[in-house]
């Protein structure tokens, strides 16, 4: 073999390890799954939306609207009496429908007079993720079709004397949105999604940064102790194993939080340039802001999750043989953070299939990403159960790490366990 070939062969042998390929393979799988999910949006757009309709107008324009809705939507409830409003909403909630549309008595008359005909719309919002607002967009599309058809009819009726401003915008709307037991008057699902978009993107990203950064610090710290041969000395000093574990976790948490604050300052300015204008004001106007108690609860969730993450990283760190192997060990943490980050960005917990709900709840790093939205809609059960679960997870992790510190494994670097040996046999 030539000298060049010899070097290439050696380099390839060193580089082509599972550690090189595994991250890329898993990322490819994650992106593939996301592609499938996003592909499902097209199917959702094709499906007729489920709506309820109350029409108490007998004019020609309401007839146009009813025809459009009947032909292009799945009208699950129809009535000509406004007293049936609550019944219609109940049916919609039961059938996971999108909206109740009420065509008021003087709808057609107003349009004929050159005024706007008003739709009263009651939206049933299932979730506030990016993908959750797709169904309401389909209903918005139907209303646009109604508008176009009414415009065409007005042009036909007008014989060239049509008020173009009114003809192009024949209808208006009064909206109320029902979301997680809250009734939000004067706001549509897309506006709520806009208001919540700051959280649904910003908080998961911040949590991802904190956990990955602090986790890397802990794993690297353990790896460096081993690589620099300082761990053996530390373990023979009169200090409790639990103090060593706690010391490393607390220090990493402090540094991780400082790094996150620095990162957030830059990231905040960057992301704010993309935010929905007036989102903060809008949030306050619709009572979509966190109270002081809620903020404390978010802090508690973040704290217990960070401790859980660091304890988990510490456990991984005990397996690190050197600094290089530590870099590979951060990968499982990154994956466990990325999965809830993407899921919570695109879908609301409530609108997920049961299996995905279980996965999301089971990953302790999901909870700080889900807590703010849950608190906005008073879902305290979700937040408290999350805190309890993550705290138990953290305690179990810490207990395992302290146990590992008391065994030979921390010194010998052996990652095999007796039960595993039996299994191998």
């Amino acid at each position, binding site marked *: 073999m030539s000298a060049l070939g010899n070097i290439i062969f050696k380099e390839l042998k060193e580089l082509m390890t599972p550690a090189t390929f595994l991250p890329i393979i898993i990322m490819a799988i994650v992106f593939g799954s996301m592609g499938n999910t996003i592909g499902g949006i097209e199917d959702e757009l094709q499906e007729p939306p489920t709506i309820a309709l109350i029409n108490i107008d007998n004019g020609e324009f309401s007839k146009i609207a009813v025809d459009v809705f009947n032909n292009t939507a799945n009208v699950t409830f129809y009535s000509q009496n406004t007293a049936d409003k609550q019944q219609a909403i109940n049916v919609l909630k039961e059938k996971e429908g999108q909206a109740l549309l009420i065509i008021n008595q003087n709808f057609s008359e107003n349009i004929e007079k050159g005024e706007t005909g008003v739709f009263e719309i009651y939206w049933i919002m299932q979730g506030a993720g990016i993908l959750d607002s797709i169904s309401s967009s389909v209903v918005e599309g139907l209303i646009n079709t109604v508008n176009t058809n009414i415009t065409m009819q007005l042009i036909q009726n007008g014989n060239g004397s049509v008020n173009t401003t009114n003809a192009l915008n024949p209808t208006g709307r009064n909206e109320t949105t029902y979301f997680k037991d809250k009734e939000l008057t004067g706001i549509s699902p897309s506006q709520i999604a806009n208001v919540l978009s700051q959280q649904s993107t910003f908080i998961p990203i911040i949590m991802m940064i904190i956990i990955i950064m602090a986790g890397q610090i802990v794993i690297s710290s353990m790896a460096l102790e081993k690589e620099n041969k300082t761990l053996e000395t530390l373990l023979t000093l009169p200090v409790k194993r639990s103090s060593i574990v706690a010391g490393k976790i607390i220090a990493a948490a402090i540094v991780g939080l400082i790094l996150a604050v620095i990162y957030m300052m830059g990231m905040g300015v960057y992301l704010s340039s993309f935010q929905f204008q007036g989102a903060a004001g809008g949030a306050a106007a619709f009572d979509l802001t966190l109270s002081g108690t809620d903020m404390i609860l978010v802090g508690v969730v973040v704290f217990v999750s960070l401790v859980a993450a660091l304890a988990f990283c510490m456990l991984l760190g005990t397996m690190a043989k050197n600094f290089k192997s530590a870099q590979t060990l951060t990968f499982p943490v990154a994956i466990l953070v990325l999965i809830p980050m993407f899921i919570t960005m695109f879908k609301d917990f409530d609108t997920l299939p049961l299996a995905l709900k279980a996965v999301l709840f089971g990953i302790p790093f999901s909870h700080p990403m889900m807590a703010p939205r849950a608190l906005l809609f008073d879902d305290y059960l979700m937040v408290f159960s999350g805190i309890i679960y993550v705290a138990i997870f953290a305690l179990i992790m810490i207990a395992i790490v302290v146990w590992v510190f008391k065994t*030979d494994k921390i010194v010998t670097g052996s990652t095999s366990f007796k039960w595993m040996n039996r299994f191998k046999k």
Partner: protein
Amino acid sequence: MVAVQVKDLVKYYGEVKAVKGIKFNIEKGEIFGLIGPNGAGKTTTLRILSTLLTLTSGNVKILGFDLEKKPEEVRKIISYLPEDAGAYKNLTGKAYLEFIANFFDPSEIKKFVTRGIEIADLGERINSKVETYSKGMKRRLLVGRALMTSPKLAILDEPTSGLDVVNAHEIRNIVKKTAEEGTTVLLSSHNMLEVEYMCDRIALINKGLIVEEGKPKDLMKKYKASNIEEVFTKVVKQ
């Protein structure tokens, strides 16, 4: 008075038997050497006595404390210097000694650090970062760290490993002086001449078993050898 009592000590690493039932005693203030080739079980024995590894079976008592039952008490009275030990690179030599001293009696921290600096004898370089130290300087710092607290038992694994003649000689003298001051020393070494010079008694260990034990002079006489190296060769060949 017996400072260290080792009875039928056995250590397995999975299927591998590293130590196969050794026993020895070390008297208080004695320098006891564990001599043997690579893989004989020296480091494993020292790691067990320093509470780093658990024993598979047998019994070890250090100044009356049962190693298995009271490891925390044992750690208060011992000091362990691993063969390839390191120090925190970002700390200065002095800061490293202070960091270690903080784990001991708070009222004696200053005294321990002063003694550590004295033993390390690095001059002004004690205030330099450890990452700038040569191998010899680092080893001197670590010996200073190991002996600054005047431990009841100092466990030194190859204390002069990788050092030049001058540095090795100075460290041997420091260890001898520490023993004279009352510290019991258990050390391991490949260097038979070093052992002959330093140790009051030695145990020859081979393939996890102690094959001979005694005072260097007595062993040389017994095997009609001119040095310990020769004794060891004869014992292993038997």
